């Protein structure tokens, strides 16, 4: 128990160590230093190290609880994050000096997992101890094996090379010989470059003392050395993986893990085939700025594994403009594979196991999407499959983000691919999921519409270009040509209606929750402007399940936004109509749409302005008897701008300002012609621009109450 607490303590302190150096630039160095010292003094790990550096020679091991506790602590840190350089020095010194005998030696050596680098001095000192102490031979072998394993992580090799001769003397020790040779081999190779002198040296040595060289050295040197990594392998790889790539990159990497996850951090390697062309190619990874990219545009070499491009905006930029289909397909294959294996096939326990990694991956993918302003087809294909098994909460923001990037789905398939799985999720999930989905669908619609407005515009300009490109497009054209303007409109309409249905039922389920209503109104703010903002000849009205909850909402913002939306509908409809009259080939908006719009306007005007709620002809009708029974006086006024629950407080405020001395509050007195126009002015000045615009475009000048002709009519 104590160990686990210590563990968490030391874990907390280590990120501190790292972040201190970065923060110190902002802060006073002195303060940071002080804090660091304080942290260190309290850190049990530091105390443990202190123990090992200070422990007196001859201290017994057996029955020594201090020793056991401290070593366990060091081991825990070693196996979880690896040991920092100083710790390696201390522990190695402790083990090799045999201060507590040879018993703990093996155990200490095994836990010497470097977090970053191994200080050269430590290794040199330990080698010296080899000659002094009475270290058992098997432990000596283990030590040399350890040196070989971490060789690439030793921060410098010059001093080691300086004691080359000293190391060499151990060759005479029969059991150490192969390992010492390996070490010498590594040390020598650096100095002598192409000279095969060690080779000759060893062959010569074999000639002199064949009984000591158990290695066989053929006429030409073979790689007779083996890996000695096994005692440390799993721990070392785990630590390096957890510590991330910063070590791997700084150390030029010693171990390549070949498991599935590492394929995500792809190694860029030049494809050999590109070099045959004779031109000097520049690997994409070597470019660091857009200017460099432009300069080398004609001789870019793609990496051997396209997945490595995902995180580089420069590379994405390049892909975006070179139209290299096969490069993109390679990226898609890798991406699709990774998504499928990680989230669908879940070969090794799946996303739940390493959700942190999955999260980072999806975020990277999302930022690539945002950068390119469109999604990859492989992530789209993945989503269609994933939606049917998704629980709606796993990585929700990321999945919804990816979903909002999917391109236009043909209306014939949109139901099966999108609506069915989404509907199931929607009705069985929390309010927050509903809001999230609403936002996602709004963003999807926005992207579709933007896409349409951009490409529809380009079409007009590039008709000649289209024909010349036909050759390029080969088979794809057939499929793409299927997406006609009417096909696109059908898809958009399906989407809008689907959202309408979701919103209606969602509002009912959630009791017209104003947060959800706000997301719904966001969506309709996009929908009402499709014609003018995005040039799409399509107008779809909200269903009454959305209209009435907004109209009768208890917060004034929703009512105001509804008014704004209705105003934009009107502007769009009138402009569409004007265009239809002007140009013969314009589109045709059905009478039904105009009828719906007019009906809603009539309802709004008679409810908010004309105090004619519950009149026959409107959607909301209650029996006369029932209304009388409710004992609400003048029930027909209860939803006008004065008595509407959302605006009542404004009416009261207005009343007090208008007639400060008046004791009896008679809100109906606002309804008189003059105060009414003042009241409206007052409301508009509160920032209710939607109401203002709605009033300006729909209410005729004479703002007399009770005027049934207050609203304008279309057709």
């Amino acid at each position, binding site marked *: 128990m104590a160990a686990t607490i210590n563990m968490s303590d030391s874990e907390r302190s280590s990120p501190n160590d790292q972040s201190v150096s970065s923060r110190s630039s902002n802060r006073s160095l002195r303060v940071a230093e002080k804090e660091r010292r304080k942290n260190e003094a309290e850190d049990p790990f530091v105390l443990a190290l202190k123990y090992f550096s200070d422990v007196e020679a001859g201290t017994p091991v057996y029955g020594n609880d201090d020793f056991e506790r401290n070593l366990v602590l060091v081991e825990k840190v070693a196996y979880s994050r690896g040991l920092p350089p100083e710790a390696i020095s201390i522990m190695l010194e402790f083990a090799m000096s045999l201060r507590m005998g040879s018993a703990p030696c093996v155990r200490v050596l095994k836990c010497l997992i470097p977090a970053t680098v191994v200080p050269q001095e430590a290794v040199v000192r330990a080698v010296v101890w080899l000659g002094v102490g009475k270290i058992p031979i098997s432990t000596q072998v283990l030590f040399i094996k350890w040196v070989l394993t971490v060789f690439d992580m030793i921060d410098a090799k010059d001093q080691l090379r300086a004691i080359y001769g000293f190391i060499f003397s151990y060759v005479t020790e029969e059991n150490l010989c192969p390992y010492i040779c390996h070490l010498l081999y590594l040390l020598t190779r650096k100095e002598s470059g192409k000279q095969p002198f060690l080779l000759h040296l060893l062959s010569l040595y074999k000639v002199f003392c064949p009984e000591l060289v158990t290695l066989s050295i053929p006429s030409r040197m073979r790689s007779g050395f083996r890996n000695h990594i096994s005692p440390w392998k799993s721990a070392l790889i785990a630590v390096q993986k957890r510590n991330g790539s910063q070590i791997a990159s700084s150390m030029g990497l010693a171990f390549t893990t070949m498991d599935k996850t590492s394929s995500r951090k792809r190694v860029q390697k030049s494809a050999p085939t590109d070099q045959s062309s004779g031109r000097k190619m520049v690997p994409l990874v070597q470019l660091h700025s857009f200017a460099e990219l432009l300069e080398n545009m004609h001789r870019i070499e793609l990496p051997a594994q396209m997945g490595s491009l995902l995180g580089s905006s420069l590379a994405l930029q390049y892909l975006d403009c070179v139209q290299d289909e096969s490069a993109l397909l390679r990226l898609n*294959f890798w991406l699709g594979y990774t998504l499928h294996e990680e989230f669908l096939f879940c*070969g090794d326990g799946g996303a739940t196991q390493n959700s942190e990694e999955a999260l980072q991956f999806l975020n990277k993918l999302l930022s690539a999407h945002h950068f390119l302003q469109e999604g990859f*087809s*492989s992530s789209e294909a993945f989503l269609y499959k994933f939606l049917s098994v998704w629980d709606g909460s796993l990585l929700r923001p990321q999945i919804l983000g990816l979903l909002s990037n999917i391109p236009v789905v043909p209306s014939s398939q949109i139901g099966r691919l999108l609506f069915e799985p989404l509907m199931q999720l929607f009705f069985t999930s929390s309010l927050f999921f509903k809001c999230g989905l609403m936002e996602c669908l709004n963003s999807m619609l926005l992207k579709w519409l933007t896409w349409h407005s951009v490409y529809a515009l380009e079409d007009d300009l590039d008709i000649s270009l*289209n024909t010349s490109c036909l050759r390029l497009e080969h088979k794809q054209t057939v499929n793409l040509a299927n997406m006609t303007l009417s096909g696109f409109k059908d898809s958009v309409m399906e989407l809008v209606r689907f959202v309408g249905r979701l919103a209606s039922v969602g509002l009912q389920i959630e009791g017209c929750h104003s947060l959800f209503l706000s997301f719904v109104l966001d969506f309709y703010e996009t929908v009402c402007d499709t014609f003018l903002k995005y040039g799409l000849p399509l107008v779809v009205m909200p269903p009454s399940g959305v209209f009435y909850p907004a109209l009768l909402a208890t917060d004034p913002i929703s009512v105001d936004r509804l008014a704004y939306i209705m105003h934009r509908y009107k502007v769009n409809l009138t402009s569409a109509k004007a265009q239809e009259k002007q140009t013969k080939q314009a589109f045709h908006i059905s009478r039904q749409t105009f009828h719906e719009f007019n009906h809603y306007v009539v309802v709004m005007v008679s409810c908010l302005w004309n105090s004619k709620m519950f009149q026959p002809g409107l959607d909301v009708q209650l029996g006369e008897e029932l209304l009388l029974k409710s004992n609400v006086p003048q029930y027909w006024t209860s939803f006008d701008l004065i008595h509407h629950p959302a605006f009542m407080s404004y009416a009261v405020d207005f009343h007090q300002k208008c007639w400060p001395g008046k004791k009896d509050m008679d809100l109906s007195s606002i309804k008189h012609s003059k105060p009414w126009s003042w009241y409206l002015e007052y409301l508009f000045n509160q920032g209710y621009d939607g109401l203002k615009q709605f009033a300006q475009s729909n209410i005729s000048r004479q703002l007399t109450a009770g005027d049934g002709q207050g609203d304008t009519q279309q057709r």
Partner: protein
Amino acid sequence: MERPQNSVVRTPPNSTAVQRRSKSKSYRQSYRSCLGAASRLGLTPGLTARRLNSSRRALKSHIITEKVNPDHLALLVKREWRLSYITPLHQFRHTQLKRYSRQLSAFIAAEKQQGVAMEVEGSQSGFRVSFSVVQGLAATDDDAETVLIQPQIFSRPVFAKQDEPQKSVWSGWLTCINGNPEYLQSLPKGFTSLPLFGGSGAEVLTSLVKSWFQQTFDCCFGPLEINHTSLQWLAALWTNCHTESNLQHLKMIWTLPVVPPLQITYTVNPQDAWELWMSVRKDRLEKTEDEEEAGSIDIEEVMRFVQGLKSHFYRHFRLDLSAGNLNQVSTALGSAKFSGKIKISNSRYMITTLTLLTECALLKMPV
């Protein structure tokens, strides 16, 4: 779901195709919709339209011994292979196999000897990899020729005698038999689809070979399990061959999800299995004169056959196998496990089995 009314908008008579892109066409297309663009890959993966064929030719005893090098065949049969699927290989050339052999030997040697400088010449190290094409296995023109990989290790690097046979430590192959032609044709130039990979030998070597392929051809490997349906198919297809080549037994292993998990080994006398199969097939065989028609088998027949086996079991043991999963099927012709291990014991029926497995592998393609 109500049908939307399309009357609201009317398409103008000269409805212009909505051009998705004009300037950077081919690029954007390839990752724009997977319905529009990727359906160019034939199979619209997003629509999950790719399913196992619901009908397939009965196992014909292909006389492939005449077409295929017997050494290669001998290697392919009687060995248990662990299967994987692979996404299409980029810039793979059947003409470059020699070079690949050298590269892969060097790669394996280098990985085995991390930290030690390696001679690039493959013959110098203990490993020698040979790539070879298995001619005559490909069933259609679209299929890429099967590739066999055999890393060999000198049994004793130094003192090997001249005549001592080199020991093959690992072998593997990549193949595509009767791959969906639409999918294969839709791949752009430069891609080779060999979706089915089998390896046999040390796991370490398998992963080394895989990572070399990943780095060299930018492809991805994933485990390929042989699912319930495929196992049922194999059971039926193998039973169908009983008259030509004795099954000896039809052994199935089922697992039932109870606590503790129950594993049932269900062995059927081959003659009984054959008679049950014939009773299922009777209708079709009586109805059609057409040889072509008679030779094909439908998924319904397979299901009826397996249902027959299940109800027989139920009658005796009061255990309904439908609640469980078929995990393994084995006969004298071969054996297959859910975990993705397959053994084909008779080369005569190799093609159809590999066709089924190729289909399974293509189903796993992400794009």
